[in-house]
């Protein structure tokens, strides 16, 4: 049996977060209109200004078209066929009142929500379809002035912060999906770290799409005030369904002077089956601004899920001496498609960015790294280093690398390197000669290939990510 066959053989592992939770839910009727937006806003008891914000975004959206430049084949999305609001009927007042079915769901996913059982050192906001169902360790965080709550609560309790920052990094006008999100977003997480505070634990949001025929449109906003520090994790899963489901999120990060935000994602939305049926359309706009001097924003992502991924977590390096980082591992197996990468916009002096992207493509997967590095004419001594490598497993997949680079400042330095190759026959044989099975050899080599990125993940996620890589590649190798 050739190595290709063997690798193909082991590519048939099942998606193990694909179960459905059976609870009573509230739905908005399918379709999108100003009335639906008013319905969502009323459901969430929102203030008038937020409704206006939504309606303005909606009107913009109706004038916009989906971007056509990504290298993606997307079956047309029927925006009128989606229900824009789904929430468990029984809204919880506190952790103790959360529907046991939901608690069990998160338990199954390895995210216990009872604080006594929760992972030490990680506070979790759990988002189930359109709403946040629980946030752990709120009290403990509040003692230090850290706000970590659902977006809806933030609108109610911290309207000034929301008003000030909502849409300040990703305006509704940014793109089609960002406008859609601004019109219909239902919940998400809000984080504010006060001046000089080092957040004592990892903050984490866990997104779960459960209901059929719905989209998830969450919004995350993280503000790190001067000299503060926060590490934030996000994880996502969805049941296996034959229809494609839309996930169009917006994440905005603001880092003030000397502040640092580390944002890690392990994205494991349902990728569709091995024939490419079903799966999540993951169309996400993530952007951070290093507003103040010497601030830092670091994105780390492990993208194993979704049938289609369209996302470019980016940094605007405005403050002098600010730092942007992007570390990414993306796997596209079976019929998965990903068009992903980052933008680093250097505006301030002595700004520095690092991009490390590792793409693994197998089966009929198609993957594009799309990056943009811009160094403005005032960005004295700006530095960028980009490394993007693609590994191809099999001859029916494709890997594409499209970096855009623009430099206007002569004291800046930019370096971009990229490689594309398959796993070396020599490497496989060497491992097997030492007694490793072909599967183990492939996993070992893939893990080595991704190591630079995986080591950026917080411990709790690194192990999960490593396992995910193995599962995602089952049957993929060639």
């Amino acid at each position: 049996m050739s190595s290709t066959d063997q690798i193909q053989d082991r590519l048939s592992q099942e998606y193990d977060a694909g179960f459905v939770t059976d609870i009573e839910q509230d739905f908005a009727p399918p379709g999108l209109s100003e009335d639906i937006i008013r319905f969502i806003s009323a459901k969430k008891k929102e203030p008038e200004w937020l409704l206006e914000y939504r309606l303005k975004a909606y009107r913009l959206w109706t004038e916009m078209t989906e971007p056509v430049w990504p290298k993606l084949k997307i079956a047309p999305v029927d925006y009128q066929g989606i229900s824009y609001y789904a929430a468990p009927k029984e809204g919880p007042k506190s952790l103790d009142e959360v529907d046991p079915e939901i608690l069990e769901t998160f338990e199954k996913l390895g995210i216990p929500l009872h604080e006594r059982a929760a992972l030490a050192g990680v506070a979790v906001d759990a988002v189930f379809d359109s709403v946040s169902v629980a946030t752990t360790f709120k009290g403990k965080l509040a003692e230090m002035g850290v706000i970590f709550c659902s977006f809806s609560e933030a609108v109610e309790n911290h309207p000034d912060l929301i008003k000030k920052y909502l849409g300040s990094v990703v305006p509704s006008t940014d793109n089609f999906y960002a406008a859609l999100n601004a019109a219909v977003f239902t919940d998400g997480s809000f984080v504010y770290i006060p001046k000089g505070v080092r957040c004592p634990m990892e903050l984490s949001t866990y997104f779960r799409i459960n209901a059929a025929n719905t989209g998830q449109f969450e919004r995350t906003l993280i503000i790190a005030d001067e000299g503060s520090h926060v590490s934030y994790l996000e994880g996502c899963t969805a049941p296996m369904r034959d229809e494609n489901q839309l996930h169009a999120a917006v994440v905005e990060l603001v880092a003030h002077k000397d502040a640092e935000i580390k944002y890690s994602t392990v994205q494991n939305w349902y990728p569709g089956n091995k024939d490419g049926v079903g799966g999540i359309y993951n169309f996400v706009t993530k952007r951070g601004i290093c507003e103040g001097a010497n601030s830092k924003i670091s994105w780390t992502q492990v993208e194993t899920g979704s049938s289609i991924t369209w996302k470019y977590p980016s940094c605007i390096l405005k403050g002098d001496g600010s730092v942007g980082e992007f570390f990414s591992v993306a796997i596209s197996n079976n019929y998965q498609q990903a068009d992903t990468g980052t933008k680093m916009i250097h505006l301030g002096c002595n700004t520095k960015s690092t991009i490390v992207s590792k793409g693994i493509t197998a089966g009929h997967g198609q993957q594009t790294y799309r990056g943009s590095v811009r160094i403005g004419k005032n960005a004295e001594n700006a530095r960028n280093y980009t490394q993007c490598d693609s590994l191809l497993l099999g001859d029916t997949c494709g890997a594409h690398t499209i970096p855009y680079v623009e430099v206007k400042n002569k004291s800046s330095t930019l370096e971009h390197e990229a490689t594309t190759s398959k796993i070396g026959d020599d490497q496989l044989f060497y491992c097997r000669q030492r007694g490793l099975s072909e599967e183990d050899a492939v996993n070992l080599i893939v893990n080595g290939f991704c190591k630079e990125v995986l080591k950026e993940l917080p411990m709790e996620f690194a192990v999960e990510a490593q396992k995910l890589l193995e599962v995602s590649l089952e049957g993929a190798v060639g």
Partner: protein
Amino acid sequence: MSAFLDSQGLTGHKPHESDPEWLANLRQQACGAVLASGLPTSKTEAWRFTSLRKLEGQSVSPASAMSGTEAVAWAKEQLGDDETLRVYLVNGQPIGESASAEGLDVTALDTIFLNDPDSLKAHLGKLAHSEFFAGINAALFVDGYALRIKSTHAGKPVHIVHIADATTNGHACYPRILIELEANAQANVIETYLSRAGQEDVCTAVTEVHLANGAKLDHLRVMEGDEGSTHLGTLAVLQERNSKYTSRSVAVGGKLSRLEIDARMSGPGAECHLDGMYHAVGSEHVAHHTLITHADSHCTSTEEYRGIVDDRAHAVFDGIINVDQGTKGTSAHQQNHNLLLSDTATINTKPHLEIDSDDLTASHGATIGSVDPDHLFFLRARGIDENHARSILTFSFVRSILDRIECEPVRDRLTAKLLSRLPYGDDIAELAK
């Protein structure tokens, strides 16, 4: 409709009387395509870094070769004797005698249209696409040269010298060159595009190259314009089995100089090497767009472009490597390195890989930076003043590309030309020896 397209007579365009039917059809299609698309805008991916806003409003009319002999005399003076077999075109039209040597036939296209037009049918207008400027050339070219090279050919390089010589009655020209190498033929061909008058001129040039099995071509293409010249070049190459194509592009002057290379390896074992050197100063804009397609197995490609950008100039490198599905044993490597010497200059680079096969090694790398302060310090510590040290480092950043030019007198002339454009360049001429 833009003034630019309008003034060249594309609307209501009629084929030339001497055109064979296939060519008349080709011209008509190209014309239709250009009129339908109009000029590219910044939304056209391949043109997002090169603005044509100014060109669009410009009225240009086809220039004649009236002052031909004078222009040729001028060019001879510029180029000196470079031990090549030369032919001249002025404003797209052959001037003076054709050239021939053992195994080599250089004939004006117009002459072939009169005698044996169908001998051009296989490749003329078939290798280059007909979008935008290549399309304008296809619709409007009047004449040019066909080079046919047999396996028996050996000898001096062939040097095609084109002079854009704008006069009061015209500014636009459409040189067209076809180079065909039969199986196992080898040749060295140089194309030099000069601008004479210092006035506004627009040269829309197309060169098509076909390499049959085992053929080998070393091809140097020089864009050497002046403050008024716009050069929009297209170079299309089709390679058969085991052929080897080497292109060197040198850009040393011109208001707007742009070269699009489309090289396709359609047979196994082919090799394609694209190199380039560009130097842009003042408000010059220089752009190289390359597309290499690995359409068959065991093909190798390398690319190395190096550039210097100063003042308010703008340089663009956009290189695509396509590796088609089902190909095996591919090796594709691309490099683009830039020296940015001013805060008002801009560099865009876009090294782009499109890989649909797993049996390959592919890589690309790009750098943008200034003169390395450590290197500068080293030279100064050895007693060289800063200005000269900068000049030396600037020159040495790109010289490796010039050094690969095989024809020595041509290499020396272009090296001198580059040095003359660098601050303190003349003082460091010794270095180039």
